[in-house]
């Protein structure tokens, strides 16, 4: 697909179209948005996204709409500065029409942990849209916008993209500035992009990428063209080696999801790619590692919500009671649980056994990715999630919920780019296929994903 083909559907979806769609009966009640700017209008900027409506996850700082992270502790808070990714979208002419619902402080995989109620999956209202960026995913899947920003710490863009049947991208750590992204786990957090198509998601990511003085972890590298060119010839992926890591296809994987992945892999072969079996032996350790490191970093990052400088305060007659009252009243159950977990694994007597060991295993996971990519494999292909969207309230055990991230957390731990795109249906619900690429090789990932998107029919599983 050429760039003009990308821009045409985007340009045709104006702000007026967004509101028209938003007001339709099948969109009402999804609870995808926490705040709307009904007066938002094209700025007149002649950029690549001129006049295009976009939705922003509520943990990215915006100047005119509140930024609450779906938490009572930040209820009504309006940031005095703007996230770099949001500014870049606006500089390209995009129009921010609203802030989207999410799991509180991005802690969750279903958007059920929002203080403002869950978002419903537009494809089946009895099911979750995934999370934590479920509101942005629902905004795109319902057709209100074609482009939205989310954030990723362990799969919070790719998993909801898979559950909602759209495209979701997590860039290389450092590709996009985290300035203005409310911190959850700083070594894992990324700003991500949802798109209606691969090319549109690529254009969105290209727009927000680049070095930023205000984020010392943003990479000082040129931003390549990411929008894939139109595929040419019968074998446009000739020369591309796609690895199929066996640990992502365990014996207990839903055979219908395995069948969809196999069909996609066969299509990649038909497009000229070579598919090679590879191994990432420490994959099973990724969820335990992630759920030590992420809560540990969260326990530090969320210490700032103490009722002193901003956010909710519970009045008390002494400082300690004010801290404890403000935080207890402001944080929901999952956030409280993760702060306690993170504080525990960092505390004296447990730091070496949990946090330090998890960091070392994270290094092993990162080294395994590097080794596979150094062996001549250009991309990896896996399922995005082990199941399609689950029902609201279906997963009540915290660790059971954590396991829904089993195929996505590895990319965050290793810092590599990854994306999900629709590859089929199971009982009418979308299934996502995931590409992962070496650091800063988003263009190759988008090229393969676009070729697959253009040639793979989205059909019901037959396995």
């Amino acid at each position, binding site marked *: 697909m050429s760039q003009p083909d990308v821009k045409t559907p985007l340009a045709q979806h104006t702000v007026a179209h967004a509101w028209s769609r938003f007001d339709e009966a099948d969109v009402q009640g999804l609870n995808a948005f926490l705040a709307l700017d009904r007066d938002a209008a094209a700025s007149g900027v002649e950029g690549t996204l001129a006049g295009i409506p976009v939705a922003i996850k509520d943990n990215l700082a915006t*100047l005119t709409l509140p930024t609450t992270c779906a938490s009572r502790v930040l209820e009504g*808070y*309006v940031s*005095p*500065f703007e996230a770099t990714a949001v500014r870049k979208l606006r500089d390209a002419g995009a129009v921010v029409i609203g802030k989207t619902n999410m799991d509180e402080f991005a802690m969750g995989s279903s958007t059920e942990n929002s203080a403002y109620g869950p978002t419903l999956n537009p494809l089946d209202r009895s099911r979750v849209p995934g999370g934590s960026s479920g509101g942005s995913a629902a905004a795109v899947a319902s057709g209100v916008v074609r482009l939205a920003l989310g954030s990723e710490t362990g799969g919070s863009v790719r998993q909801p993209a898979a559950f909602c049947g759209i495209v979701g991208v997590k860039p290389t750590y450092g590709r996009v500035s985290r*300035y203005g992204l409310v911190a959850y786990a700083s070594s894992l957090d990324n700003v991500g992009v949802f798109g209606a198509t691969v090319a549109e998601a690529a254009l969105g990511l290209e727009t927000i990428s680049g070095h930023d*003085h205000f984020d*010392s*972890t943003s990479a000082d590298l040129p931003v390549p063209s990411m929008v894939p060119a139109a595929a040419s010839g019968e074998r446009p992926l000739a020369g591309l080696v796609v690895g199929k890591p066996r640990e992502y296809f365990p014996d207990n994987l839903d055979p219908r999801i395995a069948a969809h992945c196999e069909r996609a892999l066969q299509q990649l072969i038909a497009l000229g790619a070579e598919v090679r079996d590879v191994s990432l032996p*420490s994959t*099973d*350790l990724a*969820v*335990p590692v992630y*759920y*030590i490191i992420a809560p540990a970093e969260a326990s530090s990052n969320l*210490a700032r919500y*103490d009722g*002193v*400088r*901003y956010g*909710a*305060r519970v009045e*008390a*007659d*002494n*400082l*300690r*009671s*004010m*801290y*404890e*009252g403000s*935080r*207890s009243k402001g*944080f929901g159950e999952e956030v*409280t*649980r993760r*702060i*306690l*977990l993170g*504080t*525990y694994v960092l*505390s004296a007597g*447990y730091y070496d*056994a*949990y946090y330090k*060991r*998890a*960091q*070392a*295993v994270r*290094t*092993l996971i990162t*080294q395994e990715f*590097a080794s596979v990519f150094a062996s001549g494999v250009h991309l990896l292909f896996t399922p995005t999630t082990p199941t399609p969207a689950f029902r609201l309230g279906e997963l009540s*055990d*915290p*660790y059971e919920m954590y396991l829904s991230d089993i195929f996505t957390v590895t990319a965050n731990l290793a*810092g590599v780019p990854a994306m999900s795109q629709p590859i089929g249906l199971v009982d009418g619900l979308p299934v996502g296929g995931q590409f992962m690429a070496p650091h800063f090789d988003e263009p190759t990932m988008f090229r393969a994903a676009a070729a697959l998107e253009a040639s793979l029919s989205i059909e019901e599983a037959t396995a």
Partner: protein
Amino acid sequence: MSVTPEDVRHVATLARLGLSEGQIPALVQQLNGILGHMDVLQQVDVSGVPLTPPDQAAPLRPDARPADVLLRSREAFAPAMRDGFFLVPRLTTHGAQGASADEGDAA
């Protein structure tokens, strides 16, 4: 390693979270359930493995440019301010009842 009710009270104190006694049993059960899945990491040989991959150490940059400009005053979002300072209630160590041993840390 098993989390006890006292452990939960201790980390809640460290994290400045005010938990009710009624919350403790469920949190003990949940944290033990979660941490039980982490025990698999104890079986991994990590001798000689660095805590950060050599090429992924957090980069530093010169602190050479001013901070971003705030487009709203602190008074617009602070719970309480006076004369440019954030206002907070006093420490319990300053003459009130119930001062705890680690209260000084909060200051």
